[in-house]
């Protein structure tokens, strides 16, 4: 099948770039698809790449032949080349052949575009996750399970998931390169979009905002975490458990209630101005991209703007003592 040898083209191209950069190299992003949507899109891209490389070859061969064969040579100063007006046969040839080439690319394009659109319709019984883009983080709502979370979205492996995309402020765009192409998250109720994807292997997939949305557009990352079905169910159950406050975390919990709860919900199903922090201890990253360590978390609370320009969370370094911040951190790290 064409598909097979098309796939061999990828490592070949990779080799080329490897030679250019001279560095360690692995296929990543859209070139290492881990689900059916991204695979179909990569197939289409490779198909067009093959056609286009053929076009480039034809043009380059003609071009370099012309440039090398017909240089002006010594003694030609007084001879004038024949003034050729044109050539109908040739001109018709290079009109018809491109039309044919476009046709064989247009057909699969149309097919896949319609296919992706149809599959993304949220039909009855379909798992839908609502995504709201906010400057500069992502809120994920599981309407059926009653879970609201942020920055890290969990899905079961091998199952089609539809994402309902919208935005609370400016336009964002939702992209998980290894699983699917992107779609915009538009503000307002008129332009809600649906996108579907499926992960065939468990793993942590990088997600990005791809529409310029302000200062920290570059850092508006999220992770899509695909789990086996049973693990996923366990995660859901875990998220629905109310957080337990012990004597050790009591001080932090109180401080959190005074200072943070205004913006950050911790109840499982509640949305809030800032990210819902339920299950924060299990988050891989702070703010979507900083390793979730104690030190980083303390620094984040002290001055988040320094780490992620333009975020709306104010710095707390002057409002809270280091001890108080440590208490809050301790509490956050207890939120399983």
């Amino acid at each position, binding site marked *: 099948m064409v598909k097979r040898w098309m796939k061999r083209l990828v490592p070949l191209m990779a080799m080329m*770039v490897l030679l*250019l*950069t*001279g560095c360690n190299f*692995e*296929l*990543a*992003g*859209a*070139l290492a698809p881990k689900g059916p949507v991204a695979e179909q899109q990569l197939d289409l*891209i490779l198909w*067009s790449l093959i056609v*286009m490389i053929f*076009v*480039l070859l034809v043009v*380059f061969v*003609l*071009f370099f032949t012309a440039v090398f064969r*017909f*240089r*002006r040579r010594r003694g030609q100063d007084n001879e*004038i*080349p024949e003034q*050729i*007006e*044109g*050539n109908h046969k*040739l001109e018709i040839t*290079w*009109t018809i052949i*491109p039309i044919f080439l*476009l046709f064989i*690319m*247009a057909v699969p*394009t*149309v097919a896949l*575009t*319609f296919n*992706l*659109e149809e599959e993304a319709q949220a039909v009855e019984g379909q798992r839908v996750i609502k995504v709201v883009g906010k400057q500069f983080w992502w809120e994920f709502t599981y309407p059926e399970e009653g879970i609201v979370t942020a920055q890290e979205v969990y899905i079961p492996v091998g199952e089609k998931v539809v994402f309902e995309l919208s935005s609370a402020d400016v*336009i964002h*765009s939702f992209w998980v*390169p290894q699983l699917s*192409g*992107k*779609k915009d998250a*538009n*503000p*307002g*109720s008129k332009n809600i979009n649906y996108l579907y994807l499926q992960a065939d292997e468990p793993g942590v997939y990088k997600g990005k905002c*791809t529409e*310029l*949305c302000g*200062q*920290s*557009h*570059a*850092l508006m*990352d999220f992770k899509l975490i695909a789990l086996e079905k049973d693990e996923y169910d366990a995660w859901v159950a875990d998220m629905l458990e109310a957080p337990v406050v012990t004597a050790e975390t009591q001080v932090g919990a109180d401080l959190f209630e005074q200072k943070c709860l205004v913006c950050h919900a911790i109840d499982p199903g509640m949305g809030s101005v800032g990210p819902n922090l339920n299950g924060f201890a299990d988050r891989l990253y702070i703010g979507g991209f900083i390793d979730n360590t104690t030190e980083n978390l303390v620094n984040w609370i002290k001055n988040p703007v320094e780490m992620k320009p*333009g975020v709306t969370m104010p710095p707390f370094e002057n409002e809270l003592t280091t001890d108080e911040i440590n208490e809050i951190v301790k509490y956050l790290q207890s939120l399983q």
Partner: protein
Amino acid sequence: MAHAHAQAHAHAHAHGHKKRYTGVMDWITTVDHKKIGILYLFAGLLFFAIGGLEALFIRLQLAYPMNDVVSAQRFNELITMHGTTMLFLAALPILYGFFNFIIPLQIGARDVAFPFLNSLGFWTFFFGGVLLNIGFFTGDTLPDSGWTAYAPLATEYSAGRGMDMYSIGLQLSGIGTLLGGLNFVVTIVNMRAPGMTMMRMPLFCWTAFITSILIVFAFSALAVGLLMISFDRLFGGNFFNTAAGGNEILWQHIFWIFGHPEVYILVLPAFGILSEVIPTFSRKRLFGYTSMVFATSIIGFLGFMVWAHHMFTVGMGAVANTMFAVATMLIAVPTGIKIFNWIFTMWKGQIRFTAANLFAIGFIPSFTIGGVTGVMLAMAASDYVFHDTYFVVAHFHYVIVGGTVHGIFAALFYWFPKMFGRTLNETLGKITFWLLLIGFNLTFFIQHWLGVVGMPRRVYTYLDGQPGWNEMNLVSTIGALLMGVSVVILVINIVITLMKPKNATNDPWEDGRTMEWAIPSPPPEYNFKQTPLVRGLDAWWVEKRAGNKEMTPAEPVGPIHMPNGSILPFIMSIGLFIAGIGFMYDTLLMIVGGLGILVICMILRSLIDDPGYHIEPEEIEGKGVKA
């Protein structure tokens, strides 16, 4: 016709008096298309340098992961200003410079149709450009929402005056550009010399003609879009305010209805330049002239039908997406026709590799790469992957740098002797070419890959530890620096050449084909002593082959009517500039004052007829100018 002419002469004779300025006053009052062309060229080059510096800062910031050469806010300002400056204030004005200088010469006219409007167009563009950049002087935030200014980021979510500078500055410069476009259309339709039928017109004029039509229709759409942004930002309008029920997608449609033709506005003139330079240095007529004309027209037409391919991920639905995808792919056909026609123009020719021709020939492979990635982007389902990644950045830089900039540099080397009477240094020119070619491919080729592995565009930084990102970005930055060096060498070349004495002959490339090469370099203010008679395609080549040393005249030697210079366009533009600042800072006095200046100047212009003046035949001979 003849009696009208006589009458115009009689009229002018009655009132004719000659006003002449010198020095700076000469430049700000001039209505001579050649001087305005030079003004456009240098203003464009100035903005090109500014936009280039901004690009270098962008690449320096991205040279290393989590770099902090500039802040996130500053980075967004840099990308916005780089895009806006390069497209509106550098590329197009430089092309306008060539339009202005060359078109009247190629069609055998003494000036453009509206010399006064021409000057007004330039100054309005220029002050609009200054207004756009005024944040550099006032210390305000600069425009920061990308050159596409997507609402609501550009309306409700952009603090400071930056996006007001964008909407008002572009509004002004857009008006200037629109006036210019209108002028060229009328010039080409009405001012052609006897015998210069449309199908004998040099292809550069054809592309300028189609481009100008695109400008008239596209820039007016932009004007409305910018007006809406201004209303939303300054007067609390609700066009794009989603909370009140406005629609942010409306802006994207309006912007791209302008924005896509804008791409062709930039690249069609480059096509035209190639179609002049390659035949000249191949000593062969353009292969398939007729099909080139039709291909240009079809590209211009289709250019208006495909705007939504910039919006595949917006959620327009599969029907709209596939329609725009297929329409877009169709543009590849006429573009392909052009590529093959150029190659077959060189075929069996005698190619001379001058610097001008190197840029023209170098255009072909670079632009072809940009073209094929364009087709890949047109495929909606694939575009979901490519959209808003570095793949797109790579694609449009292959088209704009590989296409437009190569075309502009080819034109600069090709027409420099005609414009300034001196030929640019060939060796330095060739160094510029090779540095640009290497630097440009180094910068942008690798970005195709970066995009597909997941680097979105317009990111001010990226995290460490992503496979290959650091190395690829560093390579890209090194390429950008090389491009910077090549432009510096070009600037040095221009400066040292301008200091040399004028020594260029009428036809310095010896194989000139079109009429501008039949007259002195630089041409006298009246261009042609006698209006020429055009006897075929490549009019000057036809005369040379017939053994003539000059064009066959279409009229006897007589007094030549010239328009007087005027300071009014300059003052009107200042009025608009003041009013623009008034709108931005909400200062009623400045708004009224600025618009008042404009209106008074318009009234003066309307009431005081310009009789122009005459250059008498004795004066022409007395100067010893040989036509």
